[in-house]
């Protein structure tokens, strides 16, 4: 039977210590967390293969810095979920609050509901699939990785974008500075198909548009000096 940690009986620090020790054992164990009650920094810093299912909603910074572990939140997640994730998979069954997956280096963040503002801000290699909509300033200064949105994107998508790829199926309220729509080439359809399959998303790659950097902000341009 899956070991269960009930947060009405076990405090946050003990829960995280138990999970981190289990991850270090590299034994592919599974844990269930009961009554998270919106706790902050739950299942953070997991550094090894481990499966954690959180039965309820979490607060700030759930599954931060995740490496190799699989974390599922059966509820909604507060701000900064999977921040600076390195690898593994984090799934949110409900909505995610602002800056989901911020600065993430790798792995897959799979948000079944909506994500609010600043989703994937400064992402550095993480893949993020959002089954619903995303809020404003998403993928701001995103450097690497893929952000896939099945719904709509809010204002200023991909502002000051570097080389992350953004795929949006619905409407985009506005593009941020230096973000532009780009052609969808076979290699992009292939990446998209793989991510949609991994995320269990019911969508076809052909339905998406791709956005990326126009690469005009990379270098100082003397003709634009007055605009800086």
């Amino acid at each position: 039977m899956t070991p269960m940690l009930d947060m009405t009986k076990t405090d946050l620090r003990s829960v995280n210590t138990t999970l981190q020790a289990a991850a270090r054992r590299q034994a592919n164990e599974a844990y269930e967390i009961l009554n998270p009650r919106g706790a902050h920094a739950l299942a953070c810093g997991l550094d090894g293969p481990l499966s954690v299912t959180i039965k309820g909603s979490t607060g700030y910074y759930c599954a931060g810095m995740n490496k190799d572990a699989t974390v599922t939140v059966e509820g909604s997640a507060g701000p900064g979920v999977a921040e600076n994730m390195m690898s593994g998979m984090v799934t949110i069954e409900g909505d995610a609050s602002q800056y989901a997956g911020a600065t993430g280096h790798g792995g897959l963040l799979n948000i079944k509901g909506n994500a609010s503002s600043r989703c994937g801000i400064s992402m550095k290699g993480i893949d993020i699939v959002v089954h619903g909509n995303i809020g404003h300033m998403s993928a701001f200064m995103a450097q690497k990785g893929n952000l896939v949105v099945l719904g709509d994107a809010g204002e200023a998508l991909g502002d000051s974008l570097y080389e992350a790829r953004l795929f949006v199926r619905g409407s985009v309220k506005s593009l941020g500075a230096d973000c532009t729509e780009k052609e969808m080439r076979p290699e992009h359809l292939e990446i998209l198909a793989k991510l949609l399959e991994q995320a269990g998303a019911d969508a076809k790659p052909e339905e998406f548009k791709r956005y990326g950097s126009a690469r005009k902000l990379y270098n100082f341009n003397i003709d634009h000096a007055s605009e800086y």
Partner: protein
Amino acid sequence: MCGIVGLFLKRDDLHPQLGAMLTDMLITMTDRGPDSAGIAIYGPATAGMVKITVQSADPAKDFSNLEAELGAALGIAVVAKVVDTHAVLVVPETAKSAAITWLEDAGLWIMASGASMEIYKEVGLPEDVAARFELRQMGGSHGIGHTRMATESAVTTMGAHPFSTADDQCLVHNGSLSNHNQMRRKLARKGVFTRSENDTEVGAAYISSRIAEGATLNEALEGTIKDLDGFFTFVTGTQNGFGVVRDPIACKPAVMAETDDYVAFASEYRAFADLPGIDAARIWEPEPATVYFWER
């Protein structure tokens, strides 16, 4: 930081539990705002009567004979309910302005007035403030609470939230306004004066002055997006319900929960954890620069 909670009950039979539900939510938000705490609570109105909530630094002295003294000055019978440093006086609407003048002259702070609204706020941990005012025992149709981590003005009773600048209207705020001094001067030129150095009081005065000029509450809240600069998640209370608005950047958190029985607002989901039926509630984040309102 700062924590905000709000609860709007859809079922009359839940009204006696409002204080208990709101107090649990308020205490959960202690680590977002341990400086001071306050609550605005909306109870039943009596036709032709108005409630005036006052605060005293020396309640033993100021409140001992308040009913009789104010009654004699106004030539009417006055009923006072003393709750720690606060007292709620019920007077006929026709005697309201005379009563407020007398109370201010007696050195008392007017916290609120209105047909339904009472405001209680003090410096201290939310748990202690709630205990002093026996908030758990209070009933009502809806209420708003705030836990404060001070930024724009000193940690004083008058710097605590909610702020009320018109009958039955109040405002709580998470964030900080950067043009509050300029707006304070603009409002003063129109004859609208604030009493503290606090930024949120300016926000409250802005909203109530717009309503006094003929704007709807919706228009007044939309006006905050254009006319107030800075960070804000606002929750505003009126006699009929409450409204929510966030600035366009929306970095100050907000989460809502709705069931058949209530609409709840909080800075964080944690505040909802004890609400009945929360597992089946619809939970969502209010969008930036969008006005939401729930009324009965």
